[in-house]
């Protein structure tokens, strides 16, 4: 039997999650207390939609929550998401509950209340932004060929994992080469046995997709 997933509250999240889950072969039910949003959701093929407040037990019961496998609470309010997940867990005995929260400080508390998976959007976004910011700091990028290829300048810190390694010892992704090593006043066109030292500046030519992986490999961040 197909696994049944409940998506409660939220609109943009529910829309994109519902589409991808249905594509993967799950039976998806969405519950939303806004009739207009429900109408919009109902346009998604194979999605079952219920209008109602998902924090109320009878709404969940109407939607046949007893037979759900996973419940995902996506409302804007942490309190609502907690109540939804607790009802799903305790009253309807749903095996896996997932809650979205906006206050990162409550993550631990939500886990303690028995919710299986707690997703904090703010922490996730902050991490991505931080990564991007770090990347800008340590590498100068020159996109060429409509941005498909990047030339990046990557400084090698003393703590980087590649220090004192020969080029062929580094596990770089396929579509990446180190085109030049700038060392002090010299510039070296490297060969496989060129050793990388702390303080070197590497000029990297890479496809846009592989560049993050390459920089991570070189700097360890």
């Amino acid at each position, binding site marked *: 039997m197909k696994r049944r997933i409940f998506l409660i509250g939220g609109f943009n999240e529910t829309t994109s999650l519902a589409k991808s889950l249905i594509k993967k072969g799950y039976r998806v039910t969405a519950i939303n207390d806004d009739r207009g949003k429900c109408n919009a959701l109902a346009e998604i093929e194979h999605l079952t939609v219920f209008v109602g407040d998902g924090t109320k*037990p009878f709404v969940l019961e109407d939607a046949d929550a007893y037979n759900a496998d996973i419940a995902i609470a996506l409302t804007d*309010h942490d309190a609502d998401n907690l*109540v939804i997940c607790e009802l799903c867990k*305790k009253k309807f005995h749903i095996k896996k509950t997932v809650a979205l929260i906006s206050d990162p400080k409550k993550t631990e508390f939500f886990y303690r209340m028995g919710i299986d998976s707690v997703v904090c959007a703010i922490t996730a976004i902050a991490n991505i932004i931080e990564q991007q910011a770090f990347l800008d700091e340590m590498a100068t990028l020159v996109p060429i060929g409509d941005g498909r290829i990047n030339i990046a300048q990557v400084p090698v810190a003393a703590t980087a994992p590649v220090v004192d390694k020969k080029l062929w010892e580094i596990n770089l992704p396929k579509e990446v080469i180190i085109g030049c090593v700038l060392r002090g006043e010299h510039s070296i066109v490297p060969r496989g046995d060129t050793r990388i030292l702390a303080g070197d500046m590497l000029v990297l030519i890479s496809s846009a997709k592989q560049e993050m992986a390459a920089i991570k490999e070189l700097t360890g961040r």
Partner: protein
Amino acid sequence: MKLFPNKKEKSYSIIVGCGRLGANLAGALYDKGANVLIIDNNKESFRKLSPSFGGISLLGDATDFFVLNESDIKNATAVVAVTNNDNTNILVAQIAKELFHIPHVIARLYDPERECVYHELGIDTICPAVLSAKEVDRILNMGEVTEEAI
């Protein structure tokens, strides 16, 4: 002079939500000589407090740990969650019970259906609808009794 001279011995109640019930309760507890702190996220709400109320009012979101720490929740003997949102009350009550181990935690729930889930957590719930129904029933029955007596 200290505001609360013998704080340790006195009971310390935190009331979350300064609505009609919250404000009345705060006033009543204060008159009985308890230490009372009332939290609400709307400054205007505190106008409902009686002029004689001498407890502390704290502006902020009671589901925020920062605000809870500021309220000195660790030393509270009772937490009463009476905001106009059931789910907020539940969240506050559970934080008080699970993280701060407050002996008496009471949550007001408008919707009696959710009650069953929270009883097992040791949170006392009061439901105005159920209480009103009981009271109406009692008054009606009382009427019958007196009629019979006559």
